[in-house]
């Protein structure tokens, strides 16, 4: 199972904003919970999220434990040229994830 699911329109109109939706599989562990033995579970949340379009950053997010598990983001990006949207994120444990989606501009 992939770490993220991305949804972008099949084709987008040049110069117009289009919707991007992404859901990342991640526990967003707050650091306030304890396991069965009473040991606290260390905090592990996605700290940074970047969406790039043709290599240029177009949307970034700095998240905290205040964002629900399996973070979902929906935002808009201005259509320019057909190309790749890439998504990258890093969590507290240093784990990095990435995903990409093709954008066709008409």
């Amino acid at each position: 199972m992939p770490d993220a699911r991305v949804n972008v329109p099949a084709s987008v109109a040049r110069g117009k904003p289009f919707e991007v939706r992404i859901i990342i599989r991640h526990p967003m562990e707050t650091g306030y919970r304890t396991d069965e033995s009473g040991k606290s579970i260390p905090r592990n949340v996605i700290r940074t999220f970047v969406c790039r379009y043709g290599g240029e950053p177009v949307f970034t997010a700095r998240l905290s434990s205040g964002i629900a598990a399996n973070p979902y983001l929906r935002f808009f990006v201005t259509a320019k040229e057909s190309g790749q949207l890439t998504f990258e994120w890093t969590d507290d444990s240093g784990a990095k994830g990435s995903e990409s989606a093709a954008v066709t501009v008409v």
Partner: protein
Amino acid sequence: MSTHGFHKSCTRRRLLQTGAALALAPWLPAHAAADALPDIPALGAFLAGRKPRLSRVRFELPQLADNGQTVPMKVTVDGLFSPESRVTAIHLFSEANPVPEMAVFEFPAPVERVEVESRVRLAASQRVVAVATMSDNVLYAAAAEVIVTIAGCMDGT
């Protein structure tokens, strides 16, 4: 004449309404203060004395959240943007969460439609604030009040 009578009673009603409004007037400033942003230290530190305008930002949270673990959130900034005045960032501040600065969304590239949707965790019933920063350093803000029945920080484990 019946029409005259109607007119008369209408005037009387208006007079009574005006009177009632005047009687309530002393409470109006207090009500206005309730509409202002909640006193969150992290928000105060971020604003550093700047006064955001309470317009253009539409911050949508459910009035009642059954489960604070995952609460749908939508923030929209209205209006026409220009290169001189466009949204560069949106900050979310929580009144009752252990981490008051919940999230920051940034827009390195201009976009006509500034709308972000996500799901937040809320530790308790509280007010949450969204502050939009424009490229000309003008700030716009909105607050939303949520009643949370099951807190987002404990889940029985």
